């Protein structure tokens, strides 16, 4: 096995176009899978030598977050947690304190698990990935990247350089909640992200609702958003949201929870998440 640490996007895409190459960011999933012999790549392409993958920049249009920026760095950023607390909280749910020092948004998404915590957080926030490849750079909304477990919409040689997160609306708030059999460092049975914006009168003008761990891929729930937009996010709207979310769920039965349980809890969780997002939107 070869280890490469290119310093330019071009060099990285060239290496990744070869046979058996894998992207290494924090390694918190990849190295574990290699140790347990699930994966044995021929070439490890460490993207952390590329400046753009390791920094957070902010301008009028929002944030650009490098794909290999760690969970701890997201939390330490001076304004990101104020603008997108739900996204940061979702990312900070990945693993333990030690893992937070390594794990990244790009890795969490590209590991291809439907239960990845940061992914519904990014989808709710409206994150768009900047993807570099042999033919140049393209963008793709995060909800369109994971197609099925371990299956991504990236082609040979492509990797995610960064994520674009829009500027927070004037009266905007987001939140992420997950439900797990216990308290931390576990895989979500249901994860839910909600981002919404209010007008000056407190009416919801925009919303995005996302779910993790209840289908083969993280979901953007359009009907959930529709249930909130145009309302004051009152009990009636929340009841509609709950129903829309439950309708969107297509979970599997496994030892962590039955289908019925996951569907039911997803609805409950969506309501609770929306309430937190609403409270945050009202405060700004």
């Amino acid at each position, binding site marked *: 096995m070869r280890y490469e640490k290119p310093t330019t996007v071009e060099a990285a895409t060239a290496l990744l176009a070869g046979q058996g190459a894998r992207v290494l960011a924090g390694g918190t999933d990849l190295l574990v899978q290699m140790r347990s012999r699930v994966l044995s790549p021929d070439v490890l392409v460490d993207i952390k030598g590329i400046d753009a993958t390791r920094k957070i920049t902010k301008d009028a249009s929002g944030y650009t977050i490098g794909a290999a920026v760690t969970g701890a760095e997201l939390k330490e950023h001076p304004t990101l947690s104020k603008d997108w607390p739900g996204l940061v909280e979702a990312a900070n749910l990945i693993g333990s304190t030690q893992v937070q020092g390594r794990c990244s948004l790009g890795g969490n998404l590209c590991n291809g698990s439907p239960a990845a915590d940061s992914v519904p957080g990014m989808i709710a926030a409206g994150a768009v990935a900047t993807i570099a490849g042999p033919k140049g750079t393209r963008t793709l909304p995060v909800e369109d990247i994971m197609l099925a477990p371990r299956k991504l919409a990236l082609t040979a040689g492509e990797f995610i350089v960064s994520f674009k997160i829009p500027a927070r609306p004037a009266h905007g708030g987001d939140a992420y909640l997950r*439900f797990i*059999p*216990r308290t931390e*460092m576990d895989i979500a049975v249901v994860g839910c992200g909600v981002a919404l914006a209010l007008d000056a009168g407190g009416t919801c003008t925009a919303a995005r609702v996302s779910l993790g761990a209840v289908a083969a891929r993280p979901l953007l729930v359009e009907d959930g958003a529709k249930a909130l937009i145009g309302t004051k996010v009152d009990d009636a709207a929340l009841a509609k949201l709950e129903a829309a979310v439950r309708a969107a769920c297509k979970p599997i039965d496994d*030892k962590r*929870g*039955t289908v019925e*349980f996951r569907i039911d*809890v997803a609805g*409950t969780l969506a309501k609770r998440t929306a309430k937190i997002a609403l409270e945050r939107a009202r405060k700004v």
Partner: protein
Amino acid sequence: MTETIAYTGRIEDERLATGRGRYVADLRLPRLAHAFTVRSVYSHAKIRSIDTAAAKAAPGVLAVLTGADLAADGIGDLPCGVELPKSDGQKAHQAKRPVLARDRVRFVGECVVLIVAESVEQAEAAGELVEIDYEPLDAVADVEPALASGAPAVWDEVPDNIAYVWKKGDNDTFEKAAAGAAHVVRLTSHVSRVTACSMEPRGALGLIDDEGRYVIHASTQGPFNMRPTLAGLFKVDQSKVRILAGDVGGSFGMKSGAYPEDVLVLWAAKRLGRPVRWISERRESFLSDDHGRDVHIDAELALDKDGKILGLRGKFDVNIGCYLSGRSLFMIGNLGGIAGVYRIPTIVASVRGIFTNQQTSAPYRGAGRPEATYAIERLIDLAARKMKIDPYQLRLRNLVPPTAMPYDTGFTFVYDCGEFEGNMTGAAELADQAGFEARRAESAKRGKLRGLGIANPIEVAGGPFAKPGKDYSSIRVSSDGTVTLNTGVMSVGQGIETMMSYLVAERLGVSVDKVRYVQGDTDLLPGGRGNGGSSSTGVGGACVAITLDNTIAKGREIAADMLEAKPDDIEFADGHFRLGGTNRAVTLFEVAEHAEKANDDGFTAAGEFQPPSVTYPNGCHMCEIEIDPDTGALEIVRYTIVEDIGTVINPTLARGQIHGGVAQGVAQAIGEKLIYDAESAQLSTGSFMDYMIPRAHDLPNINIRTREVPTKVNSLGAKGVGEAGTVGSLAATINAVCDALSPLGITHIEMPATPARIWQAIENAREAKAA
């Protein structure tokens, strides 16, 4: 016991927490070779053939060995020794565990091939080259299918899969009591299968020493138990086997016997002339550590109209896995606890060991005690619910009073002392039971369900009941100013080193840093209990107290010689031997110097202690929980224990034991469970991804109060504490969950009470109500 030396924390912690522990994996020896075992991927299969040619040719490989090689070297299976009858009345089939499977595998994870190489990685890589041709057989995945007619047999010699049967008590007497009872309640429940998850995985390093002796450094809790087994297998005298246990990072009963890997490293060391080490990977631990509990309970309690208990009948089916040994009988030895702290006129019980294609089960912290307590304490709650009597009051009505001591339960145990009502009133006060209904109402306002569960555990300690095991210890006082203590019991992380060192320091009047603590070396003592059965303090500590007496008596003799007086006139205090009524004195270490000059042995003394009977730690647990009915999420909001462990020797360490015990019991009640696939008997919870291990967040602060009712069984008055927390916490926690759910008409929930299971119970109850 008065504390004359200020306690400054655990002596061993700095060493253990800074990576300076001496675990098996830490040993560095020249020419050390590394072992890896190829394990069965089938739960039940015939082995047609094994092709090791490619593995033998792999880089760094020193040996690839199979069951046929073991047989050629004359090494047999691990012993069984169970004399109980099977269901047909004949003696139990000696279903011995092979060191390497020969013609048949019986569980996923069974050792089939041993590979020894220059490195672990080389051994593991060679393992992938071994070709085993299996012929899969139908698996017996669990107890229920094992007992079904036409079930496949784990052992051809035992077609009904019932390994042993055991009965006690008169069924007719119980039937009569039940016929005349106003109420009979029944509990059918499963105490789940769990695994110990010791922080230090199993491991062993075998070598042949210069005298040709078999020496094994092992992560074990019972060096003296392991020695005869290994000596037997290698057909040598016990003096030709030396077991060394250094620091051990958790055992919980799981490390109480010799395992196949222990035999393998010694055998390989003998064949290769090199030391050989095996260390378990965590995934191997899940598969191949002996599992715990897995007991199916069917029990009935008969009561009169006032709630007085008339009789108890319990049937216990234990999933013993696929092999049988004395370790498979844990439910029998400790079953006496089903009598609880109550007057029960008639008790009848039976235990059956059931073979399945799962890993063998063995004692696990409590070892039958938590199961017994769970049975009686759940039954009392079910009865209280049915009779609409407060569960606390129903317990009070049936308690054995202190005036009845010693109390013969009529079912094995005879309690020597105990003040059970005092435990309950103390717990009620500490848990603010009086304020519970107000807290329940406050939770309800927030849409939450709150519950309070009570359990009164009592457990046998320092056993076995029939004949308590003996412990040994020895002390050497050296002229260099140190005192060395060898103990037959041993620390597996719980702080015995500290407890014992303080005992010695206080009694001999030396500072604690002058005490050297040595454990786990079979060369140093005639025997020892190791760790288990809550006996380290009550038996091992009491043994050290005797050895200290003997040390002082010996010192008085030597001092008498030095001071030209009679031993009877010599007094010992504060590290000095003094001639009574004079100022003539010699120090402990001057006595040692004198003795060392006079004879080769120097100033040494030994002691042994076999308790005349067992002790009975007891207590009252109160668990308070809150449930979110929309998600089934459960939070333990309070946990209170009043525990009578007799005289408390070291309050900090005793509390630590209770904390850990509660954590282990609560975790089993709310989350831990080994699950085998119902078809293939593959372990589907074989990693920490899938197996719930509790974390700090899962537990509340635990309020502990000790109530000291000293036992007269040993000189310290200590009853034992290692299992106390676990024995009560299964029942207290499940009782709390059931109490919280009782407004919905739910009377019982099986462990583990996971969110999904609680949510499902609530859904079912709502549907039933709607229908």
